[in-house]
């Protein structure tokens, strides 16, 4: 064994989430009335296109979740020693993107560094000039060849990608019926093809202050965004569901207590509450360095703790919504019919109320996802987000924004972070819209009604 798998806390939770989603899918597939709204989602081209884009992000995020540590070359006999650096399958796949680091900033597709340096020319004189990059476009002799090379690689990559896309679209033709979706699939693979072929030899999005490839950073940020957007719901969901439904169903003192708790929590401005909690967490983590084997583990625990805090501070909205809905549901005649049989409260909650508030939960979760991705950037900027060593959109923006003052402007890191975030959030928002339209019972539909 030259490597050892590592399961970080966030990885474990992601696996838990995935198994929950698989279980839910199996459950839904067997029930036509639960499948119906999903079929409505599947009929919407916008939703399917968004789903396609999101699935690209998801694949990257998942590959980036399979972590391992490489064994170090053994010095003498004895136990295997593993590198303290935790890598992921994604890191392995993109290989050179991660390892090809330059000295400092370089613009997209640049052959030279952004800053002048003193160096010796052919005659041995010391001159100040922009040095060539170590990796970016190293195969070219001169800038003049670049345009042709880029064009050639782009076309080649696109063609190869488009071919793969066409094959995929053909094999999935029964599932992806809409023309728009098929076109998006082909365009997406063509884009990825071009990107892959270009990224092999260029820094497509430039490099950052310490010379890391910005494309690599942007792709790594995806996992952080997805984790924040999804794991938070693992905390929000049970809290909001149980408390909201209990408050609405039992009323009386249970309702009073739950209402009190959420009024207290929601009366504190959320950024401050998050900031306070994160500060406290930071103190705890900083005072217990012995808990963590690797720096990745520490950054990861901080990420998980951030999700926990975001969850603890953001369940109140959904809770209030569910309480209101339960108050309405408990007056429904089918609940009274169950009460007339003396069905126990727990059974009424689990069989009658919860299935009938599920659509609200689902809508709230997909709507929250994009808000959380955006919130991560803000929180990291404020200084209460993820660990500074963890790659995320927030840390990218934070690192890059001070460079806006330089001449010429270092815009690429910032622009990449914003564009990646925009695509992710836009896709999520469009999907959320489609899901809401499909699940909202207030929208009148003719199908399904007898």
């Amino acid at each position, binding site marked *: 064994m030259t490597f050892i798998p590592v399961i970080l806390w966030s990885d474990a939770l992601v696996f838990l989430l995935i198994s929950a989603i698989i279980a839910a899918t199996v459950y839904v597939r067997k029930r036509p009335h639960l499948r119906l709204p999903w079929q409505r989602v599947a009929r919407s081209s916008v939703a399917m296109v968004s789903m396609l884009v999101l699935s690209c992000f998801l694949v990257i995020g998942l590959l980036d979740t399979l972590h391992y540590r490489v064994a170090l070359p053994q010095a003498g006999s004895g136990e295997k020693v593993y590198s303290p650096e935790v890598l992921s399958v994604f890191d392995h796949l993109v290989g050179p993107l991660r390892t090809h680091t330059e000295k400092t900033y370089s613009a997209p597709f640049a052959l030279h560094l952004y800053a002048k340096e003193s160096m010796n020319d052919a005659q041995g004189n010391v001159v100040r000039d922009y040095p060539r990059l170590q990796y970016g476009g190293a195969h070219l002799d001169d800038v003049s060849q670049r345009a042709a090379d880029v064009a050639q690689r782009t076309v080649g990559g696109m063609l190869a990608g488009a071919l793969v896309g066409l094959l995929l679209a053909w094999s999935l033709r029964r599932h992806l019926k809409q023309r728009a979706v098929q076109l998006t699939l082909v365009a997406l693979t063509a884009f990825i093809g071009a990107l892959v072929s270009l990224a092999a030899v260029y820094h497509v999005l430039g490099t950052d202050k310490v010379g890391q490839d910005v494309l690599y950073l942007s792709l790594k940020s995806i996992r952080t965004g997805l984790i924040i957007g999804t794991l938070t719901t693992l905390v929000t969901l049970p809290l909001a569901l149980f408390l909201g439904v209990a408050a609405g169903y039992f009323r009386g003192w249970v309702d009073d207590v739950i209402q*009190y708790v959420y009024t207290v929590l929601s009366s504190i*401005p959320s950024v*401050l509450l998050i900031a*306070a909690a994160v*500060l406290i967490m930071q*103190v705890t983590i900083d*005072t217990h360095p012995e808990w963590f084997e690797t720096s990745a583990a520490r950054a990861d625990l901080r990420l998980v703790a951030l999700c926990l805090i975001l969850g603890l501070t953001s369940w109140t909205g959904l809770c209030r919504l569910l309480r209101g809905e339960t108050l309405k549901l408990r007056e429904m005649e089918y609940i009274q019919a169950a009460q007339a049989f003396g069905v126990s409260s727990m059974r009424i909650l689990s069989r009658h109320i919860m299935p009938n508030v599920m659509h609200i939960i689902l809508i709230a979760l997909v709507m929250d996802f994009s808000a959380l991705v955006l919130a991560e950037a803000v929180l990291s900027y404020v200084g209460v987000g993820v660990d500074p060593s963890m790659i995320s959109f927030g840390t990218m*923006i934070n690192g890059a924004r001070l460079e806006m003052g330089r001449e010429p402007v270092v815009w690429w890191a910032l622009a990449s972070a914003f564009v990646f975030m925009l695509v992710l959030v836009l896709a999520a*928002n469009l999907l959320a819209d489609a899901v809401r339209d499909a699940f909202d019972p207030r929208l009148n539909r003719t199908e399904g009604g007898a």
Partner: protein
Amino acid sequence: MIAYLIRRILYAIPILIGVNLLTFALFFVVNTPDDMARMQLGIKRVTPEAIDRWKQQRGYDKPLFVNTAADSAGTFTDTIFWQKSASMFVFDFGYSDDGRNISREIATRMGPSLAIALPTFLIGLVVYVSFALLMTLFRATALDMAGVALCVLLMSISGLFYIIGGQFVVSKLWHLVPISGYAGGADSFKFVVLPIIIGVVGGVGSSSRWYRTIFLEEIGKDYVRTARAKGLSELRVLFTHVLKNAMIPILTGVVVVIPLLFMGSLLTESFFGIPGLGSYTIDAINAQDFSVVRAMVFLGSVLYIAGLILTDISYTVVDPRVRLQ
């Protein structure tokens, strides 16, 4: 009405106590003052004496709840809880880590915060509602679809982008207004105009879409059909009937934030160097100044509760069915 207000204000007290206990627990129980001192001083230079000195300087050297060493009244008053938390109820927030009086600091910083937040709020409200009304008027047409698409796009853009992009284009490229800074009086205009515009633009997407949903929900109701059956034009229906009724759900979301305007905006103020409460909060968070953070938390919840009460009162203005009692 009076009885209602008294009841609401009485009800606010347990909420504030809850807020206070929560923050107290976060700041002093989860982590002891020793932990805080250690972190503030840096792990390296820590000696027990340094910790004690740090605690003593800030008044953290007392017991948490009960001081058995003190005399009768002091048993409870000469404790961290009493001195750091209970005193907040009379808006005595104590001193920040750099030795300033927090209450005075808050009072001077409210002005700049409001100078940005209030115009943003008012202009925003007008812009969002107008845009939403326009979409509602042209509902189910290409114009409406384009409007919704624009809203989704705008709300998918990070708030940081609006600020950084706005600063870059307006201040750096066009040199129209200073990038950041603040001045009192008439000069303040050039400093506040960009933050206000950015604040308004940043909220167009989500707010207009939300208002549009509310208007569409109202417009499907029976009384709107009655109004049309009277022969009223679509514009009159929208402005006299729908808007009046839509005010009720709109107020729910809007009035509650009015008192919170005092708190300023964290991002805008810090990017534009506005000496308001928002940047004060951010600085405190970055400097890990717990006293200031706790003061802002308390102030925030007081203002939120004030917002809730204001919301209820505002209902009586727009909804004749609501009588507070």
